[in-house]
């Protein structure tokens, strides 16, 4: 597609439920990032995928969070047993994956509300 696509755009869930957030990066982009933006906070790095390398999971806040990237393209961020503090906008970004200084292209995010 023309840009990074995220779905759903909004997700309301009950505490304790599992949720899956999807990201379709720009075609040909080998690098994919997940960030979390809480109200009044900056962007918090969660996880990074680069090609077939093992993902950098150093930003995941707890073991309730996990992410996969199938076939080097689509990525799914899963949050198990959601808590109210998980409420945030979850942003996905992709880049070509060739240089450290390259531009990230962001999706519009998924607004997650945990009731």
């Amino acid at each position, binding site marked *: 597609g023309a840009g990074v696509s995220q779905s759903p755009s909004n997700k309301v869930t009950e505490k304790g439920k599992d949720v899956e957030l999807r990201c379709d990066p720009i075609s040909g982009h080998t690098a994919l990032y997940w960030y979390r933006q809480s109200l009044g906070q900056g962007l918090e790095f969660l996880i990074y995928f680069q090609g077939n390398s093992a993902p950098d999971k150093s930003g995941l806040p707890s073991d309730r969070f996990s992410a996969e990237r199938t076939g080097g393209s689509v990525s799914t961020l899963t949050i198990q047993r959601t808590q109210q503090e998980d409420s945030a906008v979850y942003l996905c970004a992709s880049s070509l994956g060739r240089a450290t200084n390259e*531009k990230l292209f962001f999706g519009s995010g998924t607004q997650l509300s945990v009731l």
Partner: protein
Amino acid sequence: AQSVTQPDIHITVSEGASLELRCNYSYGATPYLFWYVQSPGQGLQLLLKYFSGDTLVQGIKGFEAEFKRSQSSFNLRKPSVHWSDAAEYFCAVRADNNNDMRFGAGTRLTVKP
């Protein structure tokens, strides 16, 4: 690890006035520095970036930023603000040896008519 501080949470300027948004970073070596803008309901868009060379970098929409190593700063400037510049601005820093781009907390810009 690298980190970013944006001291101003919210700034209000009049349309046509000049603008400077502050950004301070912490990193031992030369960082890669970025400014992103997030307009209401929009994704993040890159305004400009610095990684080497001329310390004054030009970006889109008339923005510029100056890298000052002595002050560990990368402030964003615009000589004359337009109403459409109202948005959230994020400064970001990335080290040259990891994949973690750290963002500041953001500065919300309001433009008065």
